[in-house]
């Protein structure tokens, strides 16, 4: 059932505490077994710990523990110029460095009022959607890997990711640490040869998404393991600030590309897939469907991309001092709403630099989804959130 956005469908007339995890009282006088899953657990995508209390196989309590990768990026950024933080944003969600660049550039452009040339906007959309395709493909690969399907689906995903990373390398000079976008455009222009190579890769993508769908969607084991597991109700998802594919898998039609129409997204024709069972299978399925929609956007953008400069010639990218004030800019990153909040005091460095990390905030509901489930399913539920610890801990 899809929840149509109506005013106050979410939380009005709910008793206080409705948004807290629903506590389960174990039967009898069972002794709880406390397990620390992590920080070096193969399913944790990095260094992340879950302190789980178990009654037999059933999860009674789950507390995530963060901070193993914390380097206080926000503090570092306050001590350097606006431009100097750009390479560090690559290291937040290192699977999707280009969308991190974009979100930061967008926030600074909001603060300074800097305009972006047409061609740069198209390049941003192309790179952003390529990032989304490779992020969703590898996140599906990881999820299936965690389920026990050792190797094959992950390698299929990585084969495609590798083609896209080759494109990134050809354009920016690096596979992952791209440092590509600038305030008021992009660092270098794409050559016609690069655009042709991208068209060729994009032509191959529908075949890949069909192959993945044929391989996985009706797989009996996958369905048995994921359907009905880790249900997240839409009203809680909104209240807990869950964004991205997870929110849409919970049946809420909210995509910042449509809502804000930042950049030039309102020129493209694409749909927003929405889940109707709110479980792990829906989250997996939404990512597959979003790959299809991204391919549609890529085809349109590659057809329409105009000529012209990729940097506003009057743009000042270094040594500028924004007027005192503040700005919050956000984009639909592959993992959810990635926002940057900047306060300027008129100096060359930001006075306050804050990242709104979708990975961290999507983990708020991990306990709610895991309570009452089997411990083996916790790994799947966690995998379906799709996080990167570089962004969670910053």
């Amino acid at each position, binding site marked *: 059932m899809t929840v149509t*956005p*109506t*005013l*106050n*469908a*979410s*939380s*009005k007339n709910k008793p*206080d*505490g409705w*948004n*807290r995890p629903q506590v389960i009282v174990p039967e009898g006088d069972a002794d709880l077994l406390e397990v620390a899953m992590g920080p070096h657990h193969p399913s944790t995508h990095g260094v992340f710990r879950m302190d789980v209390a178990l009654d037999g196989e059933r999860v009674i309590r789950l507390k995530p523990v*963060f*901070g193993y990768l*914390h380097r*206080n990026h*926000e*503090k570092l950024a306050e001590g350097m110029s606006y431009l100097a933080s750009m390479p560090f944003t690559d290291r937040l969600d290192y699977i999707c460095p280009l969308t991190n660049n974009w979100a930061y550039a967008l926030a600074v452009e*909001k*603060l*300074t*009022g800097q305009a972006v040339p047409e061609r740069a906007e198209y390049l941003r959309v192309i790179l952003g959607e390529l990032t989304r395709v490779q992020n969703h493909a590898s996140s599906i690969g990881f999820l299936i890997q965690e389920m026990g399907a050792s190797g094959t689906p992950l390698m299929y995903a990585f084969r495609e990711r590798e083609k896209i990373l080759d494109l990134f390398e050809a354009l920016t000079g690096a596979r992952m640490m791209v440092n590509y976008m600038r305030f008021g455009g992009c660092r270098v222009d794409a050559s016609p040869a690069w655009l042709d190579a991208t068209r060729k890769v994009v032509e191959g993508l529908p075949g890949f998404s069909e192959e993945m769908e044929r391989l996985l969607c009706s797989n009996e084991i996958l369905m048995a393991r994921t359907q009905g597991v880790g249900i997240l109700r839409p009203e*809680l998802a*909104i*209240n*807990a*600030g*869950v*964004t991205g594919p997870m929110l849409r898998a919970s049946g*809420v039609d*909210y995509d910042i590309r449509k*809502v804000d129409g930042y950049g030039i997204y309102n020129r493209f024709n694409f749909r927003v897939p929405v889940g109707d069972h709110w479980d792990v299978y829906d989250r997996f399925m939404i990512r597959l469907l979003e790959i299809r929609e991204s391919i549609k956007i890529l085809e349109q953008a590659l057809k329409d991309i105009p000529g012209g400069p990729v940097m506003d010639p009057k743009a000042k990218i270094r040594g500028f001092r*924004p*007027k*005192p*004030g*503040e*700005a*919050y800019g*956000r984009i639909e990153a592959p993992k959810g*709403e990635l*926002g940057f*909040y900047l*306060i*300027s005091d008129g100096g060359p460095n930001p*006075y*306050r630099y*804050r990242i*709104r990390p979708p990975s*961290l*905030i999507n*983990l*708020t*509901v991990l306990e709610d989804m895991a309570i009452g489930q089997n411990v083996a399913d916790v790994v799947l539920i966690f995998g379906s959130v799709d996080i990167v610890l570089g962004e969670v*801990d*910053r």
Partner: protein
Amino acid sequence: MRTAEQIKAAIEAAMPGAGVGFVTNPSVSEQHSLRLAPNSAVAVARFLRDDLGFSFLSNVTGVDWPDKEVSEKVTLTRTVTKTVDGVDSTVEEKVDETRKRQVPGCLEAVYHLYSVELREGPIVLRMRTGNRTDQVELPSLTPIWRSAEFQEREVFDLFGIVFKGHPDLRRILMWDEFKDHPMRRDYVEPDDFEYEPTAHDEVLTRAVAHQISEAAAGQEGTGHSQ
């Protein structure tokens, strides 16, 4: 799309005496904000969520505003005795003087709200603590919006704002035994970093100074300063 002024008017119409202030943002982004009084903040937040439709709290963060000295120019009139040609005379003189005034600092919590149903936002809420030392309590908005749970923990951890009513207020990124709040502007790194194995330049100076101070204090090595 309602503006911050309209939201403020709606709150004041429904809840007279809520004490909502308006903060203008001079930047081109024009994201103005509302300042809430801490004692009525939870009620205003509930009204924003249930009646105005701001169901989605996106971003929570802290800002540190340290005590600062403001210099002001004041023009004063003074009577001065002057000796002109051997005769003393009293003259009135205008003097410019720079006076320094202390502006007390505070910690600020900032919330960015959106409406999923009405596709509106952002509405920015701000709350200020009394000072930066002993009056650092603010009401928690986690009971209203669950998304504040981890973010308020982060603000508590890095800035030291204590959120009353938060269900689980612990450090989140730093370890539990850690003292101090690293995101404050006047935070000083402790001199216990792990020295480079082949120290040089600034690191060498600091490492030597550290070893001397450790020896003077008669402490045992921390294990980092081999």
